[in-house]
């Protein structure tokens, strides 16, 4: 196992829990940890702790009155402004006890990842509890209270003055992070998601390229609904490499929402586990090629917590810590036995999905064509720039 990679987790991160029926369920962290341990790819002694983000750290991004509202709501106060102004207490983002503490622990995990990489000699760090990319400066949105990635990026900018490439492969547009750095030329955001025409939050159009000094440092690849592996991966591989070469970041931060899979109940993409084999592989490669290895990965969405998330997220760690030989074995039987009773669905026995997971997509050709055009449009400024340099 490579000593270059830090796996971050603290039990406090499990307290980020709205209620039993809510789709955002950090139980997936326990299920994933267990899969990695049963594989022999992680042991309790090697897990590094997260920490609780301080108020000052939250204020790197969030407004003071918003943080106060979250603290107030967590203590049981209730005001009508909480829902309308701050987005807390909605059907998506209900109030729960200790919500401030729990959310601050998720943020602290991502901040710890930053410190492990910049101060403690690790090349890579993984905080699967993070990736809450919909959080806005002054408003909760889409299950996200505090935006750990935005805070971590601002923290990196302030403390280490490094230029950050943020890559978001969650099926939903990474709106919170994009808008937080929309004017900033030192932070480049690249989001791959199901088109806003079909899916929340509705943004992430190709034309959203940044503003002012930040113009040209925001990239969006919106996919058609029912996009499949091949089309998704063509765009991912091309855009990842082009944008990294163009921006030349000092560090790459990847958000690894696992909801682009066909099984995900909230989205309409038709990815299989294939794409989750490829996502961390290329991120890892580019980090070594351009950033002296500096790569932080966080979790994100992912609402099939049994068949998709544990495998998708284990794959990040296996890639990061160079333990992919573990994939030669099937999913450990001890893990399957451990969870099958609790799982309402049949757990997957293998690292790849079987063929014919879903029915034929009727508009397949049209979808591929449309995605191809979207990719070209998104990368046009880079291609134009390359032409100019050549001539």
């Amino acid at each position, binding site marked *: 196992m490579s000593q270059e990679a830090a796996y971050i987790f603290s039990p406090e991160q499990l307290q980020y829990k709205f209620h039993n029926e809510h*789709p955002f369920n950090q139980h997936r962290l326990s299920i994933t940890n267990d899969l990695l341990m049963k594989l022999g790819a992680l042991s309790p002694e090697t897990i590094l702790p997260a920490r609780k983000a301080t108020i000052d750290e939250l204020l790197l991004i969030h407004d003071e009155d918003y943080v106060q509202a979250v603290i107030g709501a967590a203590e049981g106060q209730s005001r009508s402004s909480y*829902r309308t102004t701050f987005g807390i207490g*909605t*059907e*998506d983002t209900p109030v729960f006890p200790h919500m401030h503490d729990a959310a601050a622990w998720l943020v602290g995990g991502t901040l710890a990842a930053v410190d492990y990489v910049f101060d403690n000699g690790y090349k890579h760090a993984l905080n699967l509890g993070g990736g809450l990319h*919909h959080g806005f400066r002054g408003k909760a*949105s*889409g*299950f996200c209270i505090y935006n750990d990635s935005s805070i971590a990026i601002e923290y990196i900018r302030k403390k280490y003055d490094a230029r950050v490439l943020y890559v978001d492969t969650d099926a*939903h547009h990474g*709106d919170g992070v994009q*808008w937080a750095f929309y004017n900033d030329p030192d932070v480049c955001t690249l989001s791959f998601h199901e088109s806003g*025409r*079909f*899916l*929340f*939050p*509705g*943004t992430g159009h190709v034309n959203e390229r940044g*503003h*002012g000094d930040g113009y040209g440092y925001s990239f969006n690849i919106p996919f058609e609904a*029912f996009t499949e592996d091949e089309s998704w991966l063509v765009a991912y591989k091309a855009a990842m490499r082009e944008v990294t070469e163009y921006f030349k970041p000092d560090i790459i931060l990847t958000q690894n929402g696992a909801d682009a899979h*066909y*099984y995900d*109940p*909230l989205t*309409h993409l*038709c990815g299989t586990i294939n794409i989750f084999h490829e996502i961390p592989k290329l991120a890892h490669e580019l980090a070594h090629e351009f950033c002296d290895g500096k790569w932080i990965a966080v979790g994100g969405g992912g609402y099939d917590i049994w068949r998709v998330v544990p495998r998708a997220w284990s794959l990040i760690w296996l890639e990061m810590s160079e333990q992919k030989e573990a994939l030669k074995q099937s999913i450990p039987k001890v893990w399957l036995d451990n969870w099958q009773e609790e799982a309402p*669905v049949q757990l997957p026995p293998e690292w790849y999905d079987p063929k014919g997971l*879903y*029915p034929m*997509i009727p508009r397949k050709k049209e979808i591929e064509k449309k995605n191809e055009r979207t990719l070209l449009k998104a990368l046009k400024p880079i291609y134009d720039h390359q032409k100019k340099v050549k001539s």
Partner: protein
Amino acid sequence: MSVNVRDIMKKDIIVAQRNMPVSEALDLMKTHKIRHLPIVNKQNEILGIVSDRDLRDAAPSIFDEKHKEFINLPVSKVMIENVITALPLDFVEESANTMTENQISCLPVEEDGVLAGIITETDLLHTLVRLTGAAMPTSRLEIEVPNESGQLSEVSNIIKDHQINIQSVLVYQSFSDNTKKILVFRVQCMDMRPLLKSLKEANYKIIWPTELEMKP
């Protein structure tokens, strides 16, 4: 869309008099984090405008002896005169056009000959984004209803029961069936499943989100 410049302009404006040295003007813009500084006379009439970018571009290098000379000049020597302005009752999209056509990123607003406000590209962008609802995180919900009165309010009531905000609504006649209407909502929520369940229970035909056949 008819929002007036008056509705979005900034009214507390930082200004300079014509004799302010360039160095002070730069400091003033830096302190207030603004990019443009209108130059006015005692009557608050607009004489000119300077931008931090123009000034920095025009300034000789710090190592050049002319640098000191430049930053001590009064702004009236370097300002742009014949300023293009907007009027308070101009429509926002007119001003957007003016800025694009003249390649400028700020318009002072003039009322009865004096400076009344200022709008910048950023203000315009925020306004346009707000008008189209694009900055509000929303999901698309598309429902087919019988072409009868009261349908919109019934569906809206179900959405309200879930305490979900409606950002925008579009109603149109179904292309395929003229006894039907299509309602397209943008609603402020990410997980629409509880709402969809209620709508199905009320026998509404949901067109989007749709699922692939057999999706488990």
